[in-house]
C-alpha cells in the first residue's frame, strides 16, 4: 500500500490527495478537497505549525485514527512556481506504527533480557560463594587429619631401628608429604583463581624479602652444597602482597634447588625497568628443552612424568604464574637447553 499524500496551496487548503489518504482518514473526495488542512487535522498542532512555514521538514508524530494511535514519519516539501516562489506544499505521511511497535517490543525484550542477566549473575555469584565455602570447608577437613600424620610420622621413622620397618615408614612418610603438598598447593591455586581473593598490596623491599627466604632454606642449601647468592639491589622496592611474593620466591627457589645438582649455584637478581622490576632466579641445573619451557607453567605438569616424582605437586609454577599475573606482571623461563641451567624471570610493578 502506498503512503497518503496531500497537496496544499498557499492558504493551506487541500487541493489534491490520493485514494489511500481518503481511505485512511475516512473521507470522501468531496469532503476533503478545498478544506483547510488545520481543520481536518485540528489536533495536530506540531504538524499544522510546520506546514505554515512551508519549508522542507521532516517530523515524526502520532495521529489518532478511529481511536487507534498511528505513528507517522511525515515529509513536507514546498511547491515552487517557475519564479521559484513558494505556492504550496506536498505532505506525505508514512505509517511507521509497525516499526514503532517493533521498537517498543525490542526495548521491552531488552529490559527483560537485562533483568534475566541480572538474575543469572546473582545466581552465579551465589554458586561461586557456595563453591568457595565448600572449598574452604574441604580444605579444613583435608588438612586436619594430615596434621597428626605430618607431625608424628617423621618422629616414628626416626626412632625405628628395624631396617625393614624403617623402609615402610620412609615410603609412608614420603607419600604423606606428597599428599600434604597436593592439598596445600591445590587450595592455594584455588584461592588465587577465586574472584573474591583480593591482594593486600604494600611496598616491599625486594632484597629483604629474598634474604628472609634464603635464611629459612639455609639447611637445604648446605645439604646440597649449593652457592646461593642474592644480588638484588638493596634499594629496590616493589608494590606487592608480601605473603604472595614470599610464596612466589619460595616456589622458584625450591624448584631451582630441586633441579640443580650438588655444588651448583643459584643467583637471585633484579633490575629496574621503568615502572617495573625484572627479577631473575638463575640456576646451573639440568636445564629445559623447548617443549618443557612451553609447558612448565601448566597445572600438574611435571618435567619428567616417568619419574613418578613425589617431591612435587606439579602446581608450584602454576601458582607462581597466577601470583605474578594477579600483580599485573608476566613470568617466563629461559634455558640454553638440557644440562645448561635455567633462568626464571618475572616482572612486577614498582607502583600499583
Amino acid at each position, binding site marked *: 500500500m502506498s503512503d497518503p499524500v496531500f497537496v496544499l496551496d498557499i492558504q493551506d487548503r487541500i487541493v489534491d490527495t490520493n485514494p489511500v489518504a481518503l481511505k485512511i482518514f475516512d473521507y470522501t473526495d468531496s469532503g476533503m478537497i478545498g478544506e483547510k488542512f488545520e481543520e481536518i487535522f485540528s489536533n495536530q498542532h506540531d504538524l499544522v505549525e510546520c506546514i505554515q512555514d512551508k519549508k522542507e521538514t521532516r517530523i515524526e508524530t502520532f495521529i489518532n485514527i478511529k481511536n487507534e494511535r498511528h505513528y507517522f514519519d511525515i515529509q513536507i516539501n514546498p511547491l515552487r512556481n517557475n519564479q521559484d516562489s513558494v505556492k504550496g506544499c506536498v505532505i506525505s505521511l508514512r505509517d511507521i506504527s509497525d516499526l514503532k511497535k517493533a521498537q517498543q517490543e525490542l526495548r521491552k525484550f531488552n529490559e527483560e533480557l537485562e533483568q534475566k542477566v541480572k538474575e543469572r549473575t546473582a545466581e552465579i555469584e551465589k554458586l561461586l560463594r557456595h563453591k568457595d565455602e565448600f572449598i574452604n570447608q574441604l580444605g579444613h*577437613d583435608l*588438612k*586436619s587429619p*594430615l*596434621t597428626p600424620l605430618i607431625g*608424628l610420622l617423621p618422629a616414628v621413622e626416626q626412632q625405628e631401628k628395624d631396617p625393614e620397618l624403617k623402609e615402610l615408614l620412609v615410603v609412608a612418610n614420603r607419600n604423606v608429604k606428597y599428599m*600434604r603438598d597436593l592439598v596445600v598447593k591445590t*587450595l592455594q591455586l584455588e584461592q588465587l583463581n577465586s574472584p573474591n581473593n583480593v591482594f593486600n598490596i604494600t611496598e616491599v623491599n625486594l632484597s629483604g624479602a629474598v634474604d628472609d627466604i634464603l635464611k629459612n632454606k639455609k639447611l637445604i642449601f648446605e645439604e646440597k652444597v649449593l652457592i646461593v647468592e642474592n644480588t638484588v639491589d638493596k634499594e629496590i622496592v616493589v608494590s606487592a602482597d608480601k*605473603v604472595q611474593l614470599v610464596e612466589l620466591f619460595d616456589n622458584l627457589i625450591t624448584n631451582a634447588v630441586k633441579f640443580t645438582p650438588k655444588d651448583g649455584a643459584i643467583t637471585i637478581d633484579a633490575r629496574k625497568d621503568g615502572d617495573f622490576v625484572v627479577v631473575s632466579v638463575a640456576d646451573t641445573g639440568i636445564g629445559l628443552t623447548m617443549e618443557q619451557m612451553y609447558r612448565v607453567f601448566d597445572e600438574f605438569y611435571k618435567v619428567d612424568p616417568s619419574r613418578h616424582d613425589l617431591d612435587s605437586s606439579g602446581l608450584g609454577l602454576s601458582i607462581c604464574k597466577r601470583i605474578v599475573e594477579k600483580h599485573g606482571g608476566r613470568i617466563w623461563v629461559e634455558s640454553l637447553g638440557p644440562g645448561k641451567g635455567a633462568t626464571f624471570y618475572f616482572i612486577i610493578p614498582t607502583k600499583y
Partner: protein
Amino acid sequence: MKKILVVDDEPDVAFAIKRNLKKFDDYEVTCVNSGKRCLNLLENNWIPDLILLDIMMPDMNGWEVHKRLQENPKWRDIPIVFLTAITDKSSHITGSVIAEDYIEKPYDPMDLKRRIDNILNKKK
C-alpha cells in the same frame, strides 16, 4: 619449665602437638578440647606462658576465645598463636594481626618449635 596450653577440638591433632613439643623437654604441654575448658582453666588461676589456639571449634570458636582473653586484664598478656587448618586468606591476615603468630596446619614440627621459642624468648 614453660607452660603451653593447646586448645583444639580434635584429639589426634592435640596429641600430635603435645608429642612434637614434648621431644624438646623445654615445655610442659596441657591440652583442652574446647574454648570453654580453656577459660575454665584460666578462671582457676592456671595461667600458661603461651596458648596454641585452634579456630574452627564447635560452641566457642578461636576468635571468640581470643576476644574473651583480650577482655580480661589478667589474661590479656598471654601470647596467643593461632594454629588452624582454615584456608581462607582473610583469616590469615586477621589472625596475624591480632595474635602473636598464625600457623597453618599441617605444621612442620621444627617450624612450630622455632616460632614458639621466638615468642617466649622475646617475652623474657
